């Protein structure tokens, strides 16, 4: 899994490319951690090229959400494919995030 982080002004976009499954989750969490410092702005979690998300992946999203809630920021989950959206729905995560489509 590849993680790209781009910050423009107060918006930080984290793009997940590939499978966000349990084996890679620790490495991904470490890459995302510095982004939590910017949780007072807007964090976009771009899922356009994410093909799979596991519980560990959901926990990373949840960590970002908690940091943003604590710092008064905003989290946007962008461009989920139908499978990812389904995972969010069946775990009750769908209404935890602001969801955008490209």
């Amino acid at each position, binding site marked *: 899994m590849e993680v790209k982080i781009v910050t423009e002004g107060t918006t930080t976009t984290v793009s997940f490319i590939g499978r966000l499954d349990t084996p890679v989750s620790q490495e991904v969490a470490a890459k995302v951690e510095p982004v939590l410092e910017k949780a007072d702005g807007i964090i976009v979690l771009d899922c356009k090229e994410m093909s799979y998300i*596991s*519980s560990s992946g*959901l*926990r990373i999203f*949840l960590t970002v959400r908690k940091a943003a809630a604590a710092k008064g920021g905003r989290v946007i989950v962008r461009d*989920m494919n*139908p499978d990812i*959206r*389904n*995972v969010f*729905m*069946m*775990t*009750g*995560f*769908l*209404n*935890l*995030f*602001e*969801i*955008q*489509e490209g």
Partner: protein
Amino acid sequence: MNEPKLDPHCEAILQEYRDNLPAFQEKAAAIHQTLKDTLAGAGLLVAALECRVKTEESLAGKLALKGGKYASLKDITDIIGLRIITFYTDDVDKVASAVERLFTVDWENSVDKRKLHEIDSFGYLSLHYVCSEPDFPFRFEIQMRTVLQHAWANMNHDTGYKSGVEVPREHLRNLNRLAGMLELVDEQFSRIRMDITNYRRKIQALVASGNLDEVPLDGDSYRSFLQLGPFDKLNRRIASVNQAEIQEVSLLAYMPVFKALSCKTLGDVVKLIKEHSEAAYQLACYQLGLTDLDIISSSLGPQNICIAAILKRGFGAEGLRLMFDQIGGTAGGNQALAEMILEQAQDLPFMNQK
């Protein structure tokens, strides 16, 4: 700008001010912070907390006008001035209590202008304390008033009423009429707040006593209802499918969906939960059973209750899409999601029971 000519006595007071200016600034910042922390700690929301140290120019002007009145700088109590502006008139008294606890109030020089008015007069209403602290040789002033009193005082100030210029009687009368009206508005705001608080208490009591059929479904009642954990049992049952952990989240977003499902009272919501819990569980088993997802949010219970109610009432994919639009915002993917759930549900017992 012309500096006012000061006599040697006043000039000495002004020099004393210059010598102590850093101490005034430091003290003002400390008092400001103390008040800010205390009000926040007491949960008192105020419209503004202003703090200023009198400028040299302003002090010189004051001394030029009435410098003979003051023996030394210590007699001038408004070098440091703070103003606390509250939303509600009741809060002025609460703020005053906090100030009394924090500082020593010089009662002889403090004024409650709210009590000065005769029954047939209206005007500037403010509570004004002259305070001191043991570690600081100078006194300071704290003014407390509501937003409306503040607005009136500013408007009144703009008319030049206090500048000695005579304002036509008609204008003064209009200002006083306005003061009377604002006093009534302040009272009404406080009364409305009290009514809302009483309503909330009544609803909480009804919820606690279990008389849910008598409680209309609204934001306040639903919030109290959630404290009873109405979806906990279902969420725990769903979580047991994969031994999942449950992330507690706000469930307020579902209130409009329950309303759309014709729930008018909390009793109706309870009936809906009872009626559709089994179907909600069947749906979760079907969706999660073959996955290794071991985390769910506490919104899964109400979400699946609503899905089951929508499907059993025949609202179909369109009903589901409207629900997802309501709880998470309109998104194109909601239609596809709704259609997929409808398709999944066709295999479930609750959709096939007559």
